[in-house]
């Protein structure tokens, strides 16, 4: 039996203590050990983007990060995007613009778009496409997803 590691992760603002083998992927740690199944797992080699979370505020692939590497760091998953008063502007924009169908890819898109708009509150079409280029969606079609990000930018501007 390989060594187990006791680590603490700050997930969506809450300190979570968890015991994992070193090989535990952050994606599996979130889903299996912490029960946060909002983070989806598609390809497990970095290509699809479904598992994208925010690591210290920056989007990262949780399937390409070991939980032990993330120890002590802040993680935001899709479950942490909504505020006390309901879904975030990015989430509302995706709903309004039909930015999702089956929803499998959506947690990754939401996390990626949230960070994108934080860094660049009024992105051009090109910047949105470049920013989302690492996320695959198999059903919505990207038009509505791009539209959702622009709409989220509007909502954020109105609310600030």
């Amino acid at each position, binding site marked *: 039996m390989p060594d187990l590691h006791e680590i603490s992760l700050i997930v969506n603002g809450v300190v979570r203590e968890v015991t994992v083998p070193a*090989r535990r992927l952050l994606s599996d740690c979130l889903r299996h050990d912490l029960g946060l199944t909002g983070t989806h797992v598609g390809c497990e080699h970095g290509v699809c983007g479904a598992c994208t979370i925010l*690591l210290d505020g920056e989007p990262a692939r949780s399937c390409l*990060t070991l939980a032990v*590497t993330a120890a002590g760091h802040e993680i935001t998953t899709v479950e942490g995007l909504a505020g006390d008063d309901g879904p975030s502007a990015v989430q509302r924009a995706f709903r309004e613009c039909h930015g999702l169908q089956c929803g499998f890819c959506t947690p990754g898109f939401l996390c990626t778009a949230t960070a994108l708009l934080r860094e660049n509150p009024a992105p051009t079409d090109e910047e949105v496409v470049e*920013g989302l280029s*690492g996320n695959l969606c198999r059903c919505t079609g990207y038009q509505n997803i791009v539209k959702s990000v622009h709409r989220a930018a509007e909502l954020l501007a109105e609310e600030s």
Partner: protein
Amino acid sequence: MKPPPFDYHAPTSIEQALAVLAEVGAHGKVLAGGQSLIPLLNMRLAAPDHLVDINRVAGLDAVEAEPGGVRVGALARHAAVERSAAVRSAQPLIGQALRLVAHPVIRNRGTVVGSLVHADPSAELPAVLALLGGSVRLARVDTERDVAAEDFFVGPLESATEPGELAVSAFFPALGRRTGTAFVEVARRHGDFAMAGVAALVGLDDEGAVMSARVACISVGPAPVVVDVSAQAPDWKAAARAVQDRIEPEGDIHATADYRRHLTGVLAERALTQAAADA
């Protein structure tokens, strides 16, 4: 798809990291950004007994101007290097290449030095280091050596880094006077590894005549293929033909060998034209 089990080490200083690497030798692997190694672990294409995670090692993330160039530390992520003012002013080719490396999210974690050590024949940064004649600094307990790019890239996914060694930084020479650069490539989808790609470096003399012209080609050999085309300059069509004669592309599911050769010719002409215009 889960990584096989391994013993995990998380040193917090370079000394500790080197001590662990010396102890585990050929049974150990360094974990930097994990953007190449973790896919290999997930697919069970790699199964090291020991993983030495350098993400907590202090002092490895520096990106600093040095006389004649810029030095990039082992924990400098692609994204940080892309944003670095020191890099932008010393050597624009690094930024031109980084924009073509994967997607922004991957660039948040992947490291420049990790990409060099990984030595993927389709990767952009090894071509940049080879074209510029840069070097990688390898440390082991009590000693250090600088390996020139031409000796560093040994073969596909094989660099000169030996068991027990940590690549601590890479040095990229600065752009010379009246010198231009360009990096162009063709990939199936934006952000994918390129089917072919060419980096070019063109230097002019005071009269504006081409003094030197060189390209580095990716995805068409076991390591980046550097070709000096100063003799053909400024006939970039002839230069492209000379490049096509030197490469040894192989076919795979993404592109046939002939197609890669064709692409490399077109891209070489384009890159040289852009670099000359930029000089």
